[in-house]
């Protein structure tokens, strides 16, 4: 019997503000412990929160980017619980009136296994709300004690909650990746997962198709897409095994152990929660004016979804290519800048970026923002492919040199003598010599062994030291060989 997998995500994105959500302390990552924990961050008696405009602007941008309703009035609430990394004993969050309402995100899903085809899916975003991050508990041994660093306490977070719309680990990962790309794209989060700027909680349950929703378990704090996939795969299998063995799923918060590849329920959160949410009396309702909305809209770049569609309809790229080129804002900007140099080379430009450039970046462990060649350099090379100056083989050599040594395409072509031979006379001379020197093969070819054509191409290319314009060479060879067929 089949099982249906139901997945919803809660993603905590740290907003890229200079200062904290409720105070003027810095949010820079990696500072010495508690040096960015100001009076508000450590919750001294008498201190009060004042809301950071930068955090609000970023939340609005996100809401606009997913086509959500932005609440004209939203309210901050206190979520009460005791934990040493939560200095006030409550987290300031938003509860029944969040700043961003329902929206949606279109994702491109590439099945992780099997031979399924990529497909598109719309995932509904339930809401997104502003809240403050907690500090960090350091469990290294201080003679059996835990150290508390409150530098992170008060860092602004936008918690983005999805509907349980995902039906596989692949869809969950695709959603998380699309969201990750989007928040970086619109410049509200640096997306640094190692530093915890983008943290995913994944709610997983399974059910028989058509049956009511099963009990879910929440996998906390996944900070890589790889772990997310592994954690979901393990969790799903565990739930199915449990149910098939007649067991029951208890609602629980679980942690993923990357070493073992397993999930296990947290020990400390057993006690039933009663967060006692109530409106924070220290903060007034957040009213978002039409002018704030307009301002956010004006600073929003063209969104990946719109770009993707434009690449298909205006540039004639395949949906697959378009989605890869819009996987990050840096990639899209690279593509557009390179294409500006050789505007008619859309497909070739896309191929180079998706092919050689991406492969080389991968090998060197770089991302597109760190690419050693500039869009202008790549575009210069494309221009020379387009006007026939270099062959594909020549282009590969130009690319190799640009990557490892730098330089513009034209200079490299000259220095390395990569200009194609397009002089018909010179090519004809080579072809004539080959026909004269290989009478047996010529006879065989003319006798019907068509496969030998490649043999002549090879010889001719070799004779031209690889510089012959391949199209031209083909044409001359064919004409001369077929002449006396």
């Amino acid at each position, binding site marked *: 019997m089949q099982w249906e997998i139901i997945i919803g995500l809660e993603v905590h994105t740290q907003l890229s*503000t*200079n*200062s904290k959500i409720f*105070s*003027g*302390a*810095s949010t820079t990552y990696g500072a*010495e*412990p*508690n*040096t*960015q*924990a*100001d*009076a508000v961050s*450590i919750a*001294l008696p008498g201190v009060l929160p*004042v*809301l*950071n*405009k*930068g*955090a*609000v602007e970023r939340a609005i941008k996100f809401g606009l980017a997913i086509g959500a309703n932005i609440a004209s*009035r939203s*309210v*901050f609430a206190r979520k009460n619980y*005791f*934990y*040493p990394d939560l200095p006030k004993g409550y987290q300031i969050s938003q509860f029944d009136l969040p700043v961003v309402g329902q929206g949606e995100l279109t994702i491109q899903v590439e099945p992780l296994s099997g031979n399924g085809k990529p497909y598109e899916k719309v995932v509904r975003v339930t809401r997104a709300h502003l809240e403050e991050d907690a500090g960090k*508990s*350091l*469990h290294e041994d*201080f003679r*059996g*004690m*835990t*150290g*508390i*660093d*409150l530098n992170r306490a008060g860092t602004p977070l936008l918690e983005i909650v999805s509907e349980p719309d995902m039906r596989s680990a692949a869809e969950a990962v695709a959603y998380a990746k699309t969201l990750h790309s989007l928040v970086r794209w619109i410049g509200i989060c640096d997306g640094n997962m190692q530093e915890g700027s983008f943290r995913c909680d994944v709610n997983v349950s399974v059910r028989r198709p058509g049956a009511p929703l099963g009990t879910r378990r929440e996998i906390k704090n996944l900070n890589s897409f790889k772990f997310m996939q592994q954690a979901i795969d393990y969790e799903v299998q565990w739930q199915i095994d449990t149910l098939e063995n007649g067991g029951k799923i208890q609602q629980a918060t679980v*942690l993923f152990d990357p070493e073992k590849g397993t999930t296990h329920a*947290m*020990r*400390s959160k057993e*006690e039933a929660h*009663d967060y*006692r949410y109530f*409106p924070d*009396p220290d*903060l*007034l*309702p*957040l*009213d978002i004016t039409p002018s704030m909305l307009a301002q956010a809209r004006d600073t929003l770049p063209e969104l990946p979804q719109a770009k993707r569609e434009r690449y298909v309809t205006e540039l004639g790229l395949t949906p697959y290519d378009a989605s890869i080129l819009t996987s990050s804002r840096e990639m899209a900007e690279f593509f557009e800048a390179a294409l500006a140099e050789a505007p008619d080379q859309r497909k070739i430009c896309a191929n180079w970026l998706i092919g050689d450039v991406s492969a080389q970046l991968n090998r060197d462990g770089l991302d597109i923002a760190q690419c050693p060649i500039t869009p202008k350099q790549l575009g210069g090379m494309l221009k020379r492919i387009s006007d026939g100056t270099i062959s594909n083989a020549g282009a590969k050599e130009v690319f190799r040199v640009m990557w490892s040594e730098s330089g513009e395409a034209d200079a490299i072509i000259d220095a390395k003598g990569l200009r194609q031979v397009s002089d018909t006379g010179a090519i004809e001379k080579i072809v004539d010599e080959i026909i004269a020197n290989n009478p047996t093969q010529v006879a065989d070819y003319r006798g019907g062994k068509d496969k030998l054509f490649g043999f002549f191409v090879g010889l001719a290319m070799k004779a031209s030291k690889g510089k012959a314009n391949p199209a031209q060479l083909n044409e001359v060879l064919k004409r001369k060989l077929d002449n006396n067929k």
Partner: protein
Amino acid sequence: MSLSNADVKKIASLARLAMNDAEIASARSQLSGIFELIAEMQAVDTKGVVPMSHAQDVSQRLREDKITESSQRELFQTIAPQVESGLYLVPQVIE
């Protein structure tokens, strides 16, 4: 309304207040008296009344996103019960 000892125990635990049985019993009787006083408001018809969270109907002022604070760790930690290497120390947190 009357509270049970179990109710009081649960509240004390949520509020992180250690209480022995005698304290729970005495808290129960005092809290029950206070809840009798509070019960007076249950009878009021408040249909359609908007809850009032703040004394003034004003909206939240926004602060410019600027760093205005610098480290005062040394000063702040002079009043801390237990610190080491700039960290506040607490009994081990179990996850």
